[in-house]
Structures are given as C-alpha cells and as structure tokens.
C-alpha cells in the first residue's frame, strides 16, 4: 500500500468510526447509566433514516428533515421510556432482551405498513454534493467530510454536557449510585428519561446523516446494532470516551482489515474485540 492510499484509507476509517460512535454512544449511555440492554437501538438508526426519507421528500431538503427529525426522535424516545422502558429497570436482563427484541419486530412491521419494503434514496444537499479529487481517479465526497465534522462537534458537545453541566453531573452521579442520588432529592426518573431520549436521538441522527450515502432500506439497523455492541464492549460499558476510542478502533480495524486481510475481513473486528478483552476484560475505559 502506498502512502497516498494509506492516508485515504485513514480518512475512510475515521469517517466510518465517527458515524458508528454516534450510534454506540447512545447505546452505552443507556446501558451504563440505566442498566438496560437495548436490542432495539439499531431500529432507532433505521427509524432515523426513514424519518429523513419521509421528511426530506415532503419538505424538499435534508436540512429541514434533520431539524424536524431531532425533536421528533427526542419525543419518541421520551415516550418509549415512559411507556415501556421505565418498567424494566428492576427486571433482569433476559426480560429486557425479550422486550427490546420484540420492539425490533414491531418497528419493522410498522415501518412495512407505513412506508413499505422498497429501497429509497435521499438526495445529498446541493451545497455538499461535490467532491475533492484525491488521486487522479479517486475523489472524496464532501458529504462524508461533513458527516465526520458533525460527529466531532457532537462528541465535543456530549463531553461538555456530561462533564460541565449540572445535568451531566447528575447523570454521572446516577451512573455511580442510583440510591444515593435519589436520597439527595434528585429526580432520577427524569434523568433516565432525558438520557434515554438522548440515546434515541443520537441513533436516529446517525441514521438521518447516513441516509444519503447508505440508502434507506428495511432491517438497515441490524448490522449497525451488532457493531455498536462490539464498540460498547471494547470501550467499556457506560463510558462515552470508551465508545469514541472503540468506534475509531473498529473503524480502523474494519477498513484496514478489508484491504490487508481480505480473507478475514468479516472477522477482524471480532478478533480485535477478543484481543482487547484479553488485555482489559472490562473494556478500555472501564474504571475499577
């Protein structure tokens, strides 16, 4: 591999990893703070993409679709937490798995009834439609750079919210000791609702951002869900920083695996996960 290809593959890895981070950060927050194994998290990615398709075709632009889509996703997340997930905190993981697996089936069926099973496309906004020439034959689409930029901004925003705000302080406290936080008079249920809605919105946003480059199709969340769980496990459950580091590791492993070890390309990510777990059984960023 020459140096130029190496740089371009690095760019590919970063973009893929950052997009995965968006999905995985919500999964790890909900898992780490609320203790919920949410198999339906990939469906939120799918729902986001379909929202982008439906809203973009009625409003005519992906920007307005995303602006409308985020509050809708937040509301949807808050509603789901209130209606279903709030009843799961004290249940064991098996019951959470059953409910959230059931939700995948329900979401897919409703999606099929409302929008059908066809494959759809979403137009890239005109101002990001161009591409930058990298080599004599290869261009890099501007839109992929935009996705990476948005993901970086969101990662920073997430850091500021969790480390520097009062809400973030309560979230962190809730992560450590739920009972103590309640005893201090903090409304832990409200915090859980916010965290869950945030997780749903992050996954849906990832789906919306990815819709123009990945197309919009049934079951599109399944693969993303599995990779997101790998990221959560590598990064350490509940750690947003772990999720970022692990998403980038997975992005690099997958991209370079495909090029350098094509025979093993389907397994590289899982081999990396096994290696990390041998080294740190709790994941990279899990403390104590």
């Amino acid at each position, binding site marked *: *591999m*020459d140096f*130029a*290809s190496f740089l*371009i*593959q690095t760019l*590919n*890895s970063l*973009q*893929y990893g950052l997009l995965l981070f968006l999905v995985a950060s919500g999964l790890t927050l909900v898992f780490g703070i609320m203790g919920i194994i949410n198999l339906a998290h990939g469906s939120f990615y799918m729902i986001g993409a379909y929202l982008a398709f439906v809203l973009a075709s009625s409003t005519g632009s992906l920007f307005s679709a995303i602006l409308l889509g985020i509050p809708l996703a937040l509301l949807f997340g808050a509603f789901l937490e209130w209606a279903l997930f709030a009843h799961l905190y004290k249940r064991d993981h098996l019951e959470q798995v059953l409910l959230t697996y059931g939700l995948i089936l329900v979401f897919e069926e409703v999606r*099929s009834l409302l929008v059908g*099973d*066809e*494959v*759809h*496309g979403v*137009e890239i906004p005109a101002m990001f439609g161009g*591409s930058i*020439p990298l*080599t*004599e*034959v*290869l*261009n*890099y*689409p501007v*839109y*992929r750079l935009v996705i990476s930029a948005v993901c970086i901004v969101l990662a920073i925003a997430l850091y500021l919210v969790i480390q520097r705000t009062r809400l973030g302080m309560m979230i962190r406290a809730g992560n450590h000791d739920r009972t103590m936080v309640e005893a201090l008079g903090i409304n832990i249920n409200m915090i859980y609702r916010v965290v869950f809605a945030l997780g749903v919105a992050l996954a849906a946003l990832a789906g919306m951002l990815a819709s123009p*480059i*990945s*197309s*919009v*199709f*049934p*079951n*599109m969340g399944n*693969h993303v869900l599995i990779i997101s769980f790998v990221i959560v496990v590598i990064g350490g459950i509940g750690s947003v920083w772990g999720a970022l580091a692990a998403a980038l590791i997975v992005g690099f492993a*997958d*991209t*370079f695996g*495909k*090029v350098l070890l*094509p025979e093993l*390309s*389907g397994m590289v990510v899982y081999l990396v996960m096994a290696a990390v777990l041998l080294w740190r059984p709790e994941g990279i960023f899990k403390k104590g």
Partner: protein
Amino acid sequence: MTYKINALGKLILGVALATAGLAAQAAPEGKVKIGFMLPYTGTYAALGNAITNGFKQYVAENGGKLAGREIEYYTVDDESDPAKATENANKLVKRDKVDVLVGTVHSGVALAMAKVARENKTLLIVPNAGADEITGPLCAANVFRSSFSAWQPAYAMGQVVAQKGMKKVVTVTWKYSFGLQSVEGFKEAFEKGGGKVVKDMTLPFPNVEFQPFLTEIAALKPDAVFVFFAGAGAAKFVKDYTAAGLKNSIPLYGPGFLTDGNLDAMGEAGKGVQTTLHYADGLDNKKDSAFRLGYVKAYKMQPDVYAVQGYDAAQLYQAGLSAAAGDAAKQDVVIKGMEAARIDSPRGAFTLSRAHNPVQDIYLREVQGGQNKVLSTAVKALADPARGCKI
C-alpha cells in the same frame, strides 16, 4: 339453560360439519391444484407478489384455465426463511396434495423445496431463485426453472467486457453463494476472451461499507469493475462508486440485479451503468407489449422481470398439461411436454436445456431515464452448462 345452549351448539356444529363435508364432496375433483410457496412478507414480498400476479395473469388470459382444466390455488408464505422451508413445502405437498409447486425467490429456500419435490416426486417450477445447483448437481426430472441460473447473466457479461477489449478487471461481491457464482461465471467468459481478473474482493453479507474497496480500486486502476450486489446494497454501491468519481474513469458492470428494482434509490448515480439480464425495458416484441399492457390493466402497476418469470411458469405448466390432455396425474407425460415446450415469453422465446433451465437470450442493458433500456443482445440462446447434473 346451559344444556340448551350446548344442544344448540352441538346442532350448529353438526350442521357446520355436514356442510363442510358436503362442500368438500361438492368441490369438483377436476380442479388442478397449484401450490404457491413464495415470500408475501418481508424484504422479498414485492417479488413474491409479482410472480403470483404474472402466473395468474396467464391463467386469466386463458379464461381461468390451463389446458382446459379449472385451477385451484393454494398459497403459503415462505417468509424467505430456509429454516421453515421444508415444513412449508410439506404443507402444500402432503396436506394440500398440490399437482405442482411454484416457488420461490430465496435460493436457500428453493434448495430445500427441490429436496422435498425430489422426495415426494412432486412437480416443481422455480420462478426466480438462481442458485446454480438447482439445475446443476441437484437437478431432477421433476424440477424445472422458468427464470435463470446465476451463471447465465454473469457469463454473458464476461463475454461483453472481453469483447470491449478490456484486459484487467476487479470484481466485488458479497461473500455468499449467489455472488460467488456470479463472479465465477463472469471470470470464466472473461478469461476465455483473453482478459484477467486481477483481484476478487468480497465482504460479508449484508455489509455495505464499501469505501475502503473504492480506494483500493482507485489504487489498482483496472480497465473495468464487475460487481454483484442486489437491492439496497446495490443502490449504495453504485452511489458510492459514482460519488468517488470512479465511474468516469473505470466503467462499472454487473448482472441485471445491480440495477433492477432500485433505480429510484440510485437516482442520478445509476445513469449509464451497463448490466446483463434475460429481460430489459423496451424489448421490441409483440408478446412483451401485450403482456405489459395486460399487466398494467389488471394490477395498476408496471410489470418487472419477476412478473415475467411467474407468467412463464404458468406457460410452462400449461405446455406440460396440454401434452397430457389435462391429466395432471400423468406426470411423465407432463414432464415430456414441458421439456419439449417452446415458450413464447415476453423476454423472447426460449426452450429448456437438458437440465430444465431456460436456454435464453441475455440482453445488454443500460440505465437511461430511470429504465434498464436494452442496448443489444449480449449472447443469443445461452444455455447453462449445468455442471454436475445427471439427467
């Protein structure tokens, strides 16, 4: 009170049973039973419906009959699930005792159906699934296909690309049997024509992160790229390929599944992509025009290659049934009739090979104005080699 209701209940039950018995007896023994085992839910639902519509259209054109016999349909949704395939096929074969099984789309399910058909000596017509094995190592006297084998369109594309004078090609596909069989078919014709496949790239199904491969293709600078993808993955690949600017310098080729049923999702990116298949838009033949008109009238939508394959499954069975003068029980004669048939299909007339796969023209198509327009006939009367078939 309870006693009365029970008595009444018994009475109603008795009457119901009696009428049910009468109904069963009253049903004319004369009806030929067709068993559809197709996907009616899930990702392939549209394909299952198109096949059913096509089949029923042909029957309707014949006054609701095949070879003068009334038709009765039995239907099972196979859900494209190989795990349920044997049980579903047995429902139609053993419970409903159908005269012919028609199915299906998913190759894994079709392979299980072929097994059930062989064990029970039930006639099977496969109206889509292209796994080479069905008319290859697993071929049987009572198993027919009205569609294609994976090998056929890919082989035709290999010839086309070699004839264009291209020498160095890279292939990309999902690592599952249909994709690998397509790449094999392409390679066979292309390397026979003097070209060389310099790299085979594969990724696990249904992964759609293609960006690293595009970078790799740009580094290798082949004369052309041959890909097998279908559905959503195909739309994404073509979009990514175009966005990376590769389409202008390295032309993209594939079997028709690359651009069938997803042109809307591809949008502008698909323009100019050339594919090979046994059907195309704008075929200049009377049968196709009549078929398309009839289909639009009956179902208020445009037919596709799947509807054609369903339509031809009905034509094929009609040919066999006519040979046996309408007696579905004379399976030997029905089979002989089907083997000898020349089907006047909307895709152009075809006959069957020794292994019961269509010997058909494969067209070279190009995406123009949201359609797969025919450019030329890539290979005339292409027969599947049916390697491993022993009939």
